[in-house]
Structures are given as structure tokens and as C-alpha cells.
């Protein structure tokens, strides 16, 4: 099971940026299901990200 969709989902599970690929409708369905399950995890922006974005916006 080394499909691009499996690799995509496994990178989601590792909280890493997934690689782009041309997804079929089935691929998209699996990835959507994975995202829906991952939605249960609490997600908050890090302080580092908040500060970094604030600084970059102040320069725009």
C-alpha cells in the first residue's frame, strides 16, 4: 500500500506537509475521511507562528 493517497494521509498523521499529486476522486475521498477524523485533535497556533505572522503583516 504505497499509493500517493496513503503517503499523503501518513504525512497528515505525522503533522507534516503532504506532497502534492494529481488525486483521483477516490484519493480525495480517503483524504477527506482522514481530515474529518483528524478534526477531533485539538489544534492551536503556536506562539512562534503567531509572532512570525504578526511581524510579517507589520511589514506588508
Amino acid at each position, binding site marked *: *500500500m504505497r*499509493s500517493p493517497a*496513503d503517503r499523503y*494521509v*501518513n*504525512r*497528515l*498523521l505525522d*503533522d*507534516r*506537509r*503532504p506532497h*502534492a*499529486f*494529481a*488525486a483521483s*476522486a*477516490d*484519493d*480525495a*475521498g*480517503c*483524504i*477527506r*475521511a*482522514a*481530515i*474529518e*477524523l*483528524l*478534526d*477531533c*485533535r*485539538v*489544534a*492551536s*497556533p503556536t*506562539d512562534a*507562528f*503567531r*509572532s512570525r*505572522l*504578526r*511581524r*510579517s*503583516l*507589520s511589514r*506588508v
Partner: protein
Amino acid sequence: MSSDGEAGDGPERPSAPADDAREARPVQLPTAVYPGWDAIYDDNVTRLYRLMHSKVGNRPDAEDLTSQVFVAALKSLRPTATIGEVRAYLLATARTVLAGHWQRTLGRQVTLIDVDATDLDGFTQPASSQSSNKAVDHATRILAALPERHRRILVLRFLHGYSIREAAAEMDITVTNAKVLQHRALRKAAGLDPEWSELRPADSE
């Protein structure tokens, strides 16, 4: 970046770091007005990040998309817009940014933001929010329709954060079998297995 909002132009730019004031914001009515761009940022950065994370499922992409929304909105928001108008504009911008992300990465829309059904207020407090509870309910319904072994691998991997190796050990199967099981379980969860497609709960999207 185009959006549906009509929040105007020419905001004050956020001043560099003032993070100590970011959490303590009084409850404001949607018709109230933000005192400036710092307040808009402080009040909405966490909401937008959580919204994006719920749509892409990983931190790096959620951070990128949140940044894109603010950069796009910064050009068009006017400081006299009400809180409700600002949030509606941010939401419309987020929808456009997310759609562009999916087109670039997978060539099709995997998730979307329904601006009529989504409220940024629901992304304030993840532990007790309506949105979070809905996510748990939705996941519970998906998992409940699966056979035990498929449910087990998805619970271990997605809800408990086990690695594939740890999940395999917990289930007393090989790593290869765990990968195959995860693949098949996700297909069933997505309704792609014909014999299970009718069991998948109706999606909100």
C-alpha cells in the same frame, strides 16, 4: 485574491510584537468595531488557524493558509467595518484561499468552507466549542459504522496518535498488515467500499 466581502480598504497595519495583549479581549457584539488591525489579528488568528487546520489536517499547511488569508484581507479591510463584517470577509477570503490550495496540491477540492454554515465563533475554544463537539460526533459516527478491526486501527492512528509501528504492536499484527488495514479502513470510512458506502453518515459538505 478575490473575496465576497465588502469590508473596504486601507486598514491600519499591525504594529510589531504586542503578543502579550492577544488573549484578553472583551466579549464584543458583532456590530461593534475593532479598534485597529492589531485587534482584528488578535481576535481572529486562532479562529482562522483552527478553521484551516480542520480543513487540511496538518500544521504547516494550516499556518500557510492562515497567513495567506491575513495578507489578502489586509489589503482590503477597512477599520470602520463591524466585527461581523470583518469575520464574514475573513471567512470569504478563507474559502477562496482554501479552494486555491486544493487546486494547487491535489487538482480538486477535497474540503470546502461553506460561508453560510460556518461561524468563526465556533473556533474560539477547541475543547468546549460546538465545532469541536461536532467533529467528535462526526468521527464517532464514521467509526461506528466500521468493523472492529478497521475501527481499531483508525482510532489508534487518528485519535490516539499511535505510529504505524505502535498500532501494529497494539493489535498484534505486522507493520505491513497495519498499513493494509489502515488503507482498507480509510476506504470504508470514505464510503468507497460499495458494501459499506450506505453506512457512511451523511456529510455536511
